[in-house]
């Protein structure tokens, strides 16, 4: 890595993140975590692990998948790709294979963002490299899984995703922990690069254990005529999550969509935002969040739209349902317009379940609890736009499964 990058990382080693509770790495094991052996295919996993993976949309049978990647703790356990249109490997291999890979590192996510990015740069992170070749369109998704297998592990990953010109790439990422894990940490840096005319959809399901600290750091750089669609689903308990992916719509007609489904349970603290910097002519951003807070959970949903060029459009929408007196939803929408002829808007509504709706369902024979649960599930089951039909059906299934427990 470039000296300059390392120097910047070194300086940011103790830099607290702008948002979220500060996590002490000392409480976790880093690279000294035990190694896990490599396997040929996800089919070789134990049934127990297969089940955990399936919960986050990663199918060990690998049917309907263009390829699979699995990282357990710090070890790359599996990486295989059936598609000719896509290159998939561990980031460390990619760096060895192509000397240009390092030119992509830390461009979409500044290395000195905070101590988490710094640690990732200074250590030996896992992570994957996915690249769709020019003029290709693979309809099946690559599935990638970050799995924490041992207690007290601090997992780091650095992912580089490149969609070459006029290519289309779909990714499903599932993050999960083994049954015996209670406390752990995950830092995942993901950098997306979309070349002219490219499209990426990225669907991520998180299902962590109750004492896990999660700090993803994501940046997306969009060139002309590109589309990036992110779907984020988290409905299970976790200790804290703080994430604020940023999309840089630099290209003309570039378009970004962030859709999030957040379910707060127990004493989880979810701090999830999305940001779009619209500098490209005619670029646009859309952010939709559905949040439901239960128990003592706290959900902060943030959105930031910065319009910096004429003719850009952005819309931010957050709907929240507060289901318990001890939980909270805090919605922070920010609009920043610094050009003429732009159109930025937001819409936020946080409230409780409408009694009228509950009574309507009760007068069809449901109990009060059944009615409330049906309304909550309906509320969370938003239609995800922009996916090819097979993947849309698959994603719908993933969402339905994730919200069952709410």
């Amino acid at each position: 890595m470039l000296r300059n990058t390392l120097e910047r990382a070194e300086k940011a080693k103790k830099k607290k993140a702008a948002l979220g509770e500060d996590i002490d790495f000392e409480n976790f094991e880093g690279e000294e975590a035990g190694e896990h052996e490599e396997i040929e295919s996800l089919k070789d996993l134990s049934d127990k692990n297969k089940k955990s993976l399936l919960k986050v949309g990663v199918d060990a049978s690998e049917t309907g998948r263009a390829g699979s990647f699995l990282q357990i703790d710090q070890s790359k356990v599996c990486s295989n790709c059936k598609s000719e249109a896509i290159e998939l490997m561990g980031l460390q291999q990619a760096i060895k294979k192509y000397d240009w890979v390092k030119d992509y590192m830390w461009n979409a996510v500044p290395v000195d963002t905070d101590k988490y990015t710094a640690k990732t740069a200074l250590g030996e992170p896992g992570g994957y490299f996915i690249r769709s070749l020019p003029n290709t369109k693979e309809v099946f998704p690559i599935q990638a899984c970050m799995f924490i297998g041992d207690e007290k592990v601090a997992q780091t990953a650095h992912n580089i995703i490149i969609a070459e010109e006029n290519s289309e790439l779909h990714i499903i990422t599932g993050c999960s922990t083994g049954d015996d894990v209670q406390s752990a940490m995950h830092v995942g840096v993901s950098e997306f690069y979309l070349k002219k005319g490219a499209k990426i959809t990225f669907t991520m399901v998180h299902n962590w254990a109750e004492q896990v600290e999660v700090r993803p750091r994501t940046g997306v750089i969009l060139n002309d005529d590109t589309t990036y669609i992110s779907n984020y689903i988290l409905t299970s308990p976790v200790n804290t999550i703080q994430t604020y992916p940023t999309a840089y719509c630099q290209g003309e007609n570039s378009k970004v969509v962030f859709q999030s489904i957040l379910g707060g349970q127990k004493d989880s603290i979810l701090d999830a935002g999305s940001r779009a910097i619209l500098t490209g002519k005619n670029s646009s951003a859309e952010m939709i969040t559905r949040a439901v807070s239960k128990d003592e959970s706290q959900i902060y949903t943030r959105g930031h739209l910065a319009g910096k060029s004429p003719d850009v459009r952005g819309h931010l929408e957050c709907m929240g349902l507060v289901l318990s007196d001890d939980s909270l939803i805090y919605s922070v929408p920010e609009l920043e317009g610094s050009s003429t002829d732009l159109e930025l808007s937001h819409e936020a509504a946080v409230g409780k379940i409408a009694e009228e709706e509950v009574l309507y369902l009760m007068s069809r024979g449901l109990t009060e609890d059944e009615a409330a649960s049906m309304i909550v599930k309906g509320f969370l089951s938003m239609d995800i736009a922009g996916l090819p039909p097979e993947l849309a059906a698959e994603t719908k299934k993933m969402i339905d499964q994730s919200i069952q427990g709410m």
Partner: protein
Amino acid sequence: MVVRLLLEITDLAVEVSGKEILSDIDLYIDKGETHVLLGPNGSGKSTLFMSMLGFPKYKVIRGEILFKGEDITNMTTTERVQLGLGVSFQNPPAIRGVKLKDLLNIESSKNGTKPVSEELSPETVALADKLKFSDQFLERDVNLGFSGGEVKRSEILQLLAQKPDFIMFDEPDSGVDIENVELLAEEINVLLDKDKKPGLREKSGLLITHLGYILNFVGANTAHVLMDGKIACSGDPTEILEDIRKEGFKGCVQCCGIH
């Protein structure tokens, strides 16, 4: 003698947000009977339905409601519905993400005809077809963006899946075109066992209507006129409607003794 009495409301008074909306309500409905509830806007017709359903805002301050001989005055809505009450609402709420199909599924599963599942039973599909709903329509979020007539048809469809024993229809004909009123009336007749001889009918209904056109197709035994929260007059539906048309509500109530 066989007991035919299905619903008995005696001396009912109901308060909403501290204000007495209904008082001195006495209403007795036998099995197999259909009664009509008339009355000016704001007279308390829908309030009576909500009170019979046990909606929390509608506080019974006097009187009691017996259904199938059981005192339901303090039961939850769910318990009343499980006992056999059903309703088609005047203005049902839209629920985002809850499909009409989902409702049909719970309704038909609650009445025991089939287990809960993803797919609709062939009977329910046939019912939907009869009410002119396509498969795609059933996938829509319930009442969200439904037209006035679609709301009314969807309410009746849900009742057909649910099969209650006593059904309250709150203006099933308002805003519905002539052809669809006939269609809805046909299904209301099915719901109320009208194909059977009067003595053999098991189901009963109470129907709110303003124009009464639907009564050309749905036969009713008795009509009640609600004025300022009280039943001011009861009698033959055709005669009462005729009086209201000629004399207005006030006039009708004044000469009520004649019926």
